[in-house]
């Protein structure tokens, strides 16, 4: 599994090694501490919130006497108990911590119960008598559009003249695709544990992807300076975007109660409450008209991308921006108009989820391609190739519709390799033969590419910090801005530090992400954790190396530039000493052995008003071939085989990267097949537990799951050891599953199938039952 690296990148073997996750030995022993596992301070209290049972309306009265009188209840807190800001939110502060005079979704927190146990708090919270003046909820896309209900104003990206290009095109078609949301279902639910400290300070253990925003939210709600608040996160039991903004709420409410009562307070959301309170992946509706030529090449595209954002803005602006940009996936679009509607609906506030609008944009784009292929009766793969961006950066066909030139395009090369290794052509023929022969079980095949932009589109977030200590015995501690949610960023950053110092990874102690160690951090999101924090840690290590080299040079009279750090030794020409000895000598000579490190991504800059600029430092590429079978009498589907080829650049850790590819693919498959969120006509989420919300299990994944990291992968940009980000891109490889199912439905009924996502058995059955389309 270990891959070859260029000589410049390999010294100790730390970078590029398929090392286990840094906590693997703890995970298998049940010895890894999650927040709920921290021994509780004496007198620790627990929280549950009372939630709105009405999706939209005026809050007339709340009678909480029975709540206060319930067994075990210590306090009941509402908006009047908040000393600082009553509204929070990552961009717009449009989310009341507790409802003030209106309610906007079923599940919205009205008040918090603080009690001696979680069970007592939950029981008491249900005793509130609340009077509402109900209004009809806005749930549907068209209802929201008619009511002019938006969390952010509509935005349009225009490049070229789409209308004229479509009118002049030899072929035209229009269609609509609905895409469902997705619950993150991090196995560890939302949790925060707030412990008051002296003089008004607050320590909050938070399961958060964004410790700094959590710190600031706590401070704002408490009405104190952020310097009074420390947020620590050693690890999360999964996050997937769901703890980027939403974790702050739980931390703020726990801290509010802790400050008020001067006791430690834990807020662990019961899974059912977590589903009802927190946001999910955005649901999207894509309406489009496309003009194209006989080869399937797109000449003009007009699309409206509408998303149901729920009751507040959260990160919906950036999510929808990314959707608009990723409609092109790997395809050149010369004449495009994309209208982006960020609709306010009376639901949980849709939020970040792995891919962050990218999956919906890419699926919409792939659906356009699939429509064109079916219209022209061409193999969709041929239409894809006809539309790929040019690999020549100077070509007009290398320019994206958002004004960024693609300078690292490898998609044709990568797809061609996968086409051969997966035997696409042979299997295409075999699937067609099967379908000609078998009346009830139909098969489908699809190869889809992924081209995913890497960087935060909010350019200022593309920065990171690290804090590196070398103790005078030579042991090393690294701390940085990234949070660990299972993706292995701690391991990768430790590999970078070990590589720089020429030490073994086990000699580098990784410590919990902590706002008092590294300040002003960006969220661990946008797949950027290792890219940003690896570079920041490297900068810190190089600073310390420079000091040690200068010290050795001045002591022994050689050129500092000749000093090398490898194999646990410091060397210059014939001179060499063990690392520990050099560190000790430097300490005795009063050399500073601690450093911060900072990194800021070059080249990026983006105007969110026009959606033009260079939002991304580089692109990650991949492709997948999925083969499925459907039963046209029951609508059941099964993934039979999948082949993946994915570009992670020069892998920092191929074992971790492969795990990201496999896990991302299966999560994407869940989004597009079995994971269905259902809100009823009143706006109540009806799928709020794993009993009704179907996450893929081991038997949903085929034995034939062939994943390869692309051997020729290399980042053309100066990323950390020329690696590429891997967190999100593989999720979108699962578009191939959806389009393979669509292919199977087409085999069942002919024409262009009407199949929305997720392709549940019910939808597949309906799509097969509809008469052949034109």
């Amino acid at each position: 599994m270990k891959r070859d690296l260029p000589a410049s990148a390999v010294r100790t073997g730390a970078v590029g090694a398929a090392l286990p996750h840094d906590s693997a030995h703890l995970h298998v022993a049940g010895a890894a501490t999650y927040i709920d596992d921290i021994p509780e301070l004496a007198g620790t209290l627990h929280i549950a919130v009372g939630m709105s049972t009405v999706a939209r309306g005026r809050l007339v009265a709340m009678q909480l006497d029975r709540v206060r009188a319930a067994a075990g209840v210590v306090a009941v807190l509402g908006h009047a108990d908040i000393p600082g800001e009553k509204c929070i939110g990552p961009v717009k502060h449009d989310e009341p911590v507790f409802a003030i005079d209106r309610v906007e979704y079923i599940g919205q927190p009205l008040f918090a119960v603080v009690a001696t146990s979680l069970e007592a708090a939950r029981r008491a919270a249900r005793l509130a008598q609340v009077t509402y003046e109900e209004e009809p909820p806005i749930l549907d896309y068209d209802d929201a559009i008619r009511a002019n209900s938006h969390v952010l104003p509509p935005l349009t990206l225009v490049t070229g003249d789409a209308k004229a290009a479509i009118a002049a095109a030899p072929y035209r078609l229009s269609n609509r695709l609905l895409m469902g949301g997705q619950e993150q279902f991090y196995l560890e639910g939302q949790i925060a544990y707030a412990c008051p400290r002296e003089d008004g300070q607050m320590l909050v253990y938070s399961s958060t992807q964004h410790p700094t925003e959590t710190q600031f939210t706590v401070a704002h709600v408490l009405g104190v300076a952020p310097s009074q608040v420390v947020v620590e996160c050693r690890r999360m039991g999964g996050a997937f975007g769901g703890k980027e903004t939403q974790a702050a709420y739980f931390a703020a409410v726990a801290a509010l109660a802790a400050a008020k009562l001067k006791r430690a307070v834990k807020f662990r959301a019961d899974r059912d409450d977590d589903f009802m309170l927190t946001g999910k992946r955005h649901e999207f509706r894509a309406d489009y008209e496309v003009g194209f030529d006989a080869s399937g090449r797109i000449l003009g595209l007009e699309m409206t991308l509408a998303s149901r954002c729920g009751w507040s803005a959260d990160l919906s602006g950036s999510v929808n921006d990314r959707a608009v940009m990723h409609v092109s996936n790997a395809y050149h679009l010369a004449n495009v108009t994309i209208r982006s509607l960020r609709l306010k609906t009376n639901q949980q506030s849709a939020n970040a989820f792995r891919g962050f609008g990218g999956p919906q944009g890419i699926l919409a784009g792939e659906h356009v391609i699939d429509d064109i292929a079916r219209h022209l009766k061409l193999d969709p793969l041929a239409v894809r190739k006809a539309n790929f961006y040019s690999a020549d950066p100077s070509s007009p066909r290398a320019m994206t519709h958002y004004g960024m030139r693609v300078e690292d395009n490898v998609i044709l090369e990568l797809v061609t390799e996968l086409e051969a290794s997966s035997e696409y052509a042979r299997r295409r023929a075999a699937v067609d033969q099967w379908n000609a022969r078998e009346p009830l079980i139909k098969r489908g095949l699809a190869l889809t590419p992924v081209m995913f932009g890497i960087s935060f589109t909010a350019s200022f977030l593309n920065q990171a910090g690290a804090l590196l200590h070398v103790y005078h015995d030579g042991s090393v501690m690294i701390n940085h801005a990234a949070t660990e949610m299972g993706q292995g960023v701690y391991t990768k950053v430790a590999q970078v530090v070990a590589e720089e110092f020429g030490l073994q990874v086990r000699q580098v102690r990784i410590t919990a992400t902590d706002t008092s160690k590294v300040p002003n951090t960006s969220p661990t999101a946008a797949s950027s954790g290792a890219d940003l924090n690896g570079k920041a840690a490297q900068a810190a290590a190089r600073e310390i190396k420079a000091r040690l080299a200068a010290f050795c040079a001045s002591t022994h009279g050689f050129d500092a530039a000749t000093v090398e750090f490898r194999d646990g030794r410091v060397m210059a020409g014939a001179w060499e000493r063990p690392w520990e000895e050099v560190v000790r000598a430097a300490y005795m000579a009063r050399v500073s052995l601690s450093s911060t490190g900072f990194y800021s991504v070059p080249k990026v800059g983006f105007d969110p008003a026009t959606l033009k600029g260079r939002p991304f430092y580089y692109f990650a590429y991949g492709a997948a071939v999925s083969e499925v079978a459907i039963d046209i009498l029951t609508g059941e589907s099964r993934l039979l085989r999948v082949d993946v080829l994915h570009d992670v650049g020069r892998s920092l850790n191929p074992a971790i990267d492969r795990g990201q590819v496999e896990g991302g693919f299966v999560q994407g498959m869940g989004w597009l097949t079995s994971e269905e969120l259902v809100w009823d006509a009143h706006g109540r989420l009806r799928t709020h537990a794993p009993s009704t919300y179907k996450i893929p299990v081991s038997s949903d994944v085929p034995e034939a799951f062939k994943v390869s990291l692309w051997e020729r992968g290399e980042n053309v940009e100066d990323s950390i050891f020329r690696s590429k980000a891997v967190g999100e891109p593989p999720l979108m490889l699962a578009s191939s599953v959806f389009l393979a199912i669509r292919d199977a439905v087409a085999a069942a009924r002919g024409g262009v199938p009407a199949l929305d996502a997720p392709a549940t058995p019910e939808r597949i059955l309906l799509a097969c039952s509809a008469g052949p389309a034109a």
Partner: protein
Amino acid sequence: MTTESISLTVNGQPRRMDIDPRTLLVQLIRDHLGLTGTHVGCDTAQCGACTVHVDGRAVKSCSILALQADGTEVTTIEGLATGDELHPMQQAFRDCHGLQCGYCTPGMVMSAIELLKHNPQPSEQQIREGLEGNICRCTGYQNIVKAVQQAAGA
């Protein structure tokens, strides 16, 4: 609050205590005994993160009362290793990268051990079906299946 007396053996140690009869087995393990390696994932007996062994059988410990385990021998994830030596299934999960966030891992390991107990040489399909009661949201299950295969060969 009325209490009931309960006696059981946990990871080889006899335990006797008085508990609220509504206490779930997982609460007894985590809150009363401080064995926090057993995790609560979904609270409703679906995800399998809280799986332990009761008299050698894998049980989702959030789905039974502690009193139902009266007189039994309970093994949790903390009870598998012999000193510093990991159980072969624990070692296999580490060797095969059968984990990412690690939250499902203890329950997954406990279920996998029971799977091999009943079927020491399972086919890949039998492993996949045998672990259907344990949700992993991170790995896509490939490395978990490989870990069980390695442990079966050990």
